[in-house]
């Protein structure tokens, strides 16, 4: 169906040209970035593989390794749309992408970009699904029939007339899939389809893909960071990294060597299981002995960073120490009540993960804490300060937030410029921010434009800007979106260090594995209300949506992370 023959992609010159190929595509540490002398930057080379029909192929690689570029080769967006040089040959069902433009492949390859909202041409579900067919000239009768079929196939019939902007993230992603699917392609290419979704919505989208592959025999190629969500759906895996691309590998084999792997694989590797289990079900079968031996040990201690004095779970006990607290907080956004009498207190040294589906009020809570939103009822206090009334310059000393899109708080032309600007903004001695940045990521090129940084580096830069003024509370909104496991591990270490030095950390996240790694406390929001508030060990394992993989495998034991298991088994042996 898809055949790559010695394919490589290179771009002339440095950063500016590479940017055109899309978000996070090259830009990062791999592929010879940072070379200023040479005029050619190779993203990857020597990709040779053949994807048979009806396969679900997963492209796995670190941030900035060229996953997006590889995907865009399949329908000819590279090089027709992005520029650059394509070496070798890509043929799709016999059509050479060299001679066929993406639009000529539109009836064969459906391409879904990372952010569905930015790919919508029209404004209602039905019209969006019909749009591609209109361009292809499908006659009105079969167009109507196919729209109805697509609505049913993706479970969108209930929202067919709704404006696209009002849909939830999962629905938007399904509309984006339906919009390309309706035109009847045999191949579907998706770039990080679930990275912005909560676990349940992601499962929804993946179930849809699974169905397309199994019921309709469509070939699907997916790039995804959150392997724990997709690895068990994949038929084959293509590994990409350091400019090299593997052939089609069996997922279990690929995971033995992959530098990027989900916790389930981490556990399998740590316990030397072979072959590696990919699904929770397989892993549970393998883990029965481990469960028995671990059951004899005392339960694992909660994540280390938590000071003993703060072990009490009742907010009352923290009264004196709380650096941030909300009492009976309600926030209205238009006609929607985003938060409804929420009371949470955060003490120094705590890492609080705020979880819940998209639109549950996580971001609203964070915004209220830094005074971006005015409460409709209730109070918000940062120490003695009311953030919504205070001057921003006072608020940033007590609470700093890294927004979901870190580039929102980055304005300068270069990393160095950003650091100087931050020093000026917060009235700090020169070089403070640059010093913080060096502590977080030592190897950032100070002359690079913040937008050319890899996703992980950009989060780090934003974090450095926020941390420079040493606020008591650090808030992060979806910090791991687009981060690979290595970048995530660095972030976890940094957050633990922050907590250990007496900062309070609050993060809103969909990433259950991150919450399991770092959170001392988990607050679950639903419809703007707190539905659970307790230690990570008590909240996470019980929930089918929010339980981390390790906890699912070792249920009913209260283990959350691979490290805990390793520590326990190490002690046992």
């Amino acid at each position, binding site marked *: 169906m898809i055949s790559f023959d010695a394919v490589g992609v290179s771009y002339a010159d440095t950063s500016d040209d590479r940017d055109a190929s899309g*978000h996070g595509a090259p830009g990062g540490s791999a592929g010879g970035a940072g070379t200023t002398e040479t005029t050619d930057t190779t993203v990857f080379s020597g990709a040779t593989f053949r994807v048979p029909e009806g396969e679900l192929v997963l492209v796995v690689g670190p941030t900035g390794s060229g996953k997006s570029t590889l995907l865009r080769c399949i329908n000819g967006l590279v090089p027709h749309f992005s520029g650059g040089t394509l070496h070798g040959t890509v043929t799709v069902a016999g059509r050479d992408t060299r001679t066929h433009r993406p*639009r000529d492949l*539109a009836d064969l390859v459906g391409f879904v*970009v990372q952010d569905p*909202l930015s790919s919508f041409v029209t404004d209602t579900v039905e019209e969006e699904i*019909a749009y591609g067919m209109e361009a292809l000239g499908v006659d*009105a009768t079969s167009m109507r029939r196919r729209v109805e079929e697509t609505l049913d196939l993706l479970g969108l019939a209930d929202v067919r007339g709704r404006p696209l902007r009002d849909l939830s993230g999962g629905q938007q992603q399904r509309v984006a899939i339906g919009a390309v699917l309706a035109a009847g392609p045999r191949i579907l290419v998706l770039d990080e389809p679930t990275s912005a979704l909560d676990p349940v919505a992601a499962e929804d989208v993946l179930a849809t893909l699974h169905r397309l592959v199994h019921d309709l025999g469509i070939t699907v190629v997916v790039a995804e960071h959150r392997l724990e969500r997709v690895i068990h759906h994949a038929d084959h895996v293509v590994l990409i990294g350091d400019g090299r691309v593997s052939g089609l590998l069996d997922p279990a084999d690929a995971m033995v060597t992959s530098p990027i792997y989900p916790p389930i694989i981490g556990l399998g590797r740590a316990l030397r299981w072979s072959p590696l289990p990919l699904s929770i079900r397989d892993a549970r079968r393998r883990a029965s002995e481990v469960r028995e031996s671990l059951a004899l040990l005392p339960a694992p201690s909660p994540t280390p960073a938590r000071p003993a004095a703060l072990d009490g779970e009742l907010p009352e006990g923290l009264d004196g120490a709380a650096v941030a607290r909300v009492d009976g907080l309600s926030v209205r956004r238009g006609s929607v009540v985003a938060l409804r009498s929420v009371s949470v207190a955060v003490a120094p040294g705590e890492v609080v993960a705020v979880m819940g589906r998209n639109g549950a009020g996580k971001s609203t809570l964070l915004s209220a804490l830094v005074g971006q939103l005015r409460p409709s009822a209730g109070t918000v206090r940062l120490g003695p300060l009311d953030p919504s009334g205070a001057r921003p310059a006072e*608020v*940033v000393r007590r609470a700093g937030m890294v927004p979901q899109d870190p580039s929102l708080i980055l304005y300068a032309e270069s990393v160095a410029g950003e650091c100087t600007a931050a020093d000026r*903004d917060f009235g700090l001695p020169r070089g403070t921010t640059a010093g913080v940045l060096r502590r977080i990521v030592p190897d950032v090129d100070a002359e690079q434009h913040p937008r050319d940084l890899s996703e992980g580096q950009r989060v780090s830069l934003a974090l450095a800007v926020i941390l420079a003024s040493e606020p008591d509370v650090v808030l992060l909104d979806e910090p791991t979106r687009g981060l690979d496991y290595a970048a995530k591990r660095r972030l976890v270490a940094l957050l633990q260090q922050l907590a250990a030095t007496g900062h309070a950390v609050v993060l809103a996240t969909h990433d259950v594995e991150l919450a399991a790694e770092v959170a001392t406390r988990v607050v679950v929001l639903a419809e703007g209300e707190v539905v659970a508030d307790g230690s990570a060990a008590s909240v996470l394992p019980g929930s089918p949506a929010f339980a981390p993989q390790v906890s699912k495998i070792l249920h009913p034991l209260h283990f959350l992370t691979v490290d805990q298991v390793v520590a326990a088994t190490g002690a046992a042996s």
Partner: protein
Amino acid sequence: MTPRLGSTPLPRLLHPAAWWAWGVGLAVAASQTTNPLLLALVVAVAAWVVLERREVGATNPLVPFLLVGLFAIGLRVVMVGLLGGGVTGRVVLFRLPEVPLPAWTSGVRIGGAVTLEGLLAALYEGLRLAAILACLGAVNALASPRRLLRYVPATLYEVGTAVVVALTFAPQMVDDAARVRAARRLRGHTGRGLREIGRLAVPVLVGGLERSLDLAASMEARGYGRVVRRSAASTRFAAGLTLVGLLGVVVGLYGLLDATSPAVLGLPMLVVGVLCAGAALVVGARRDPRTRYRRDPWAGPEWLVSLSGLVPAVVLTAGAVLSWPGLVPHQVPAGLPPVPLGMVAAIAVAALPAVAAPVPPLLARSREAAA
């Protein structure tokens, strides 16, 4: 689709062009008169039809349009009070202190006597503008311009797409700007002031640019502009014809509405324009391989609605040409405006859609649920 006599048509959305014909007709009628009673009737008709036939969940721009209209009236009255108008009346209400101006500025004054007639004339003129705005607001509420855009002629498809994309992007840019401004707080700034706006512009524009690239990639991948079987020459010919046609229509309408322009600019120009535009549609659409999804039918109700808007337009325009009494009431001396029954009836015809047009589906469902 033709409704049987005595039965209301099945609930459905009307063809947007029908509503626009209705609304523009009503606006044309309003533009021909300064009789406050007729103008008030136009506003009432527009508001009633909106109340009866606006789809549930559709935006309602009628209210903001009415507010703008009120503002226009107020502004007009104040300006006339301050600067005087063309109407010199006899009933002096009060005198403002007058600023002495040199002799060569004859006809212009600041301050001075404020007459009842002058104020009334200003009020009626303002009311006319407000009534036209109300008609446009009503049309926007009944059929969004987006829906109308789906019917741009095939030759102007690219332009239509660009407008649709722009309409989608504008609110997103506004959202972006709000988010960036809120994010400025995180850097310890208020996000207010001129320098701050400069700061905000860069992230907003860069974000918009990135989204545009994404959209372009997605459109390219979905086959936008894929099959062009038309030759370049025929495309140019059709596009040229369309533009000439549209220009003709605009100039013709202007000539028709503006009493001072020569007669040749009016109806003849309009007819030529419509013919050109029609020819362009045929030429352009003949070889267009694209298809359109779910076009609204043009059936009995569409004729009814568009004609009911045309009736007042034709009657009041004829009245203006033949200078029927009551259309432009005498301003001096001030008196109660007359009630020209024929024209009241003509405007009342435009209210027909409020009872005879098909009910939009969601509205029909919610009414059924309420009953």
